[in-house]
């Protein structure tokens, strides 16, 4: 391995790293919002919206991200909706992630004991107070392990962004290999940067999970 090559590649990877992080986290934030909303709608069986959510979840859970991105990036412009590549990446990731997050939050909501509802109602809490002070916080903490797993999964899924010509880590590596044939160095840096991106998430995730054990889950 040639360390001079590596050090000359690093700035390119750093640039790609930030792009991946930026789009990745926007997508993940979006997925959490979508996930919580659809889980709420599904758990409380809100008419119409819950049927729409169900279709959405099944549609996006059962198609690959690559196909979804192609659809948003190449098919939508045909009907007059053109989307910039980075918006497309974030939205695609958000939609895919939303369908996974939805299942996690829904099982979190389902996991809160029914007796919690009763004891809260017996204290005179309104349905709204019951949800925000009793059900939701518990559902969230039950959801944490699943959310962390999904965040890691989604950050890894960003590697398909290269297919819609986003200069992410994967794209950078492929690009450099194509230009200079320094395959080993390029792939080595690719692994290193993915680990730099994901390891803190795993570590942070297990710290949060340990904290949650303290309050009952």
């Amino acid at each position: 391995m040639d360390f001079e090559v590596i050090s000359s590649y690093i700035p390119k990877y750093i640039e790609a790293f930030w792009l991946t992080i930026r789009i990745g986290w926007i997508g993940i934030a979006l997925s959490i919002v979508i996930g919580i909303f659809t889980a709420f709608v599904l758990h409380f069986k809100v008419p119409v919206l819950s049927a729409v959510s169900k279709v959405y979840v099944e549609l996006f859970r059962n198609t690959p991200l690559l196909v979804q991105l192609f659809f948003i990036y190449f098919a939508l412009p045909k009907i007059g909706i053109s989307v910039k590549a980075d918006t497309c990446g974030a939205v695609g990731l958000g939609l895919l992630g939303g369908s996974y997050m939805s299942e996690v939050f829904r099982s979190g909501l389902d996991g809160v004991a029914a007796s919690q509802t009763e004891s809260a109602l017996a204290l005179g809490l309104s349905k709204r107070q019951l949800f925000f002070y009793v059900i939701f916080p518990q559902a969230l903490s039950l959801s944490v392990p699943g959310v962390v797993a999904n965040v890691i999964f989604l950050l890894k899924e960003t590697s398909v962004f290269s297919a819609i010509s986003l200069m992410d880590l994967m794209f950078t590596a492929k690009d450099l290999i194509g230009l200079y044939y320094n395959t080993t160095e390029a792939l080595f840096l690719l692994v290193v940067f993915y680990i730099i991106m994901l390891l803190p998430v795993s570590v942070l995730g297990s710290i949060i999970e340990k904290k949650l054990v303290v309050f009952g889950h």
Partner: protein
Amino acid sequence: MEEILTVKNISKRYEDITVFQDLNLSVKKGEVVVIVGPSGCGKSTFLRCLNALEDIQDGEILLDGEVVNSGNKDLSKIREKIGMVFQSYDLFPHLTVLQNLMLAPTKVKKRDKKEVQKEALELLERVGLLSKKDNYPRQLSGGQKQRVAIVRALIMHPEILLLDEITAALDPEMVKEVLDVVLSLAKEGRTMLIVTHEMQFARAVSDRMIFIDGGKIVEEGAPKEFFENPKTERLKKFLQTFTYGD
């Protein structure tokens, strides 16, 4: 004395099963009424109907003259006046002991936080759990959890307390610490309606005993009469199941 709770001819049915039929009961201010009966006789369901956790098919429940009904818009206002403690404690696991106590008074009654906290600490001290105020429920024993649950109901200043087999899930050595708290509440004149299987406790705490079997009130009376001279065969038999030997 004034009646706090009046139950008129209430019935509870699920599809084709009748849990109880035409039950009547009135509880006066300061009275402690204990309901006993075999498992599955409907006594817990009866208690749960009283704050509309279960709906009733016939009859009427009045608390302080107001109708308790799941269709009532002011249901949560009425529930504030009815404290309930459950067999499985049902503390909020994501909140500390102090937060468990403060949630309803501050959010439902919108009382001042400092004032509520002061009261919560006093009540915790009274039940011997002041040192646990910052612990989470899972760090407490069953008996401690149940004492917190009692305080959580008390701090809402309910007109009446409903205790639903509050010692049934406890290890024997923890039963007493919980029942002592209830006894002290009875002494200070709290109105309580208690469902329990602890006969000695029932006798010590009650002003009036009620025996429910097969969805009906079979016998009721003062505790001394009730335990020493049961009139009905069914109550005699029921009480015998709690004695050993002969």
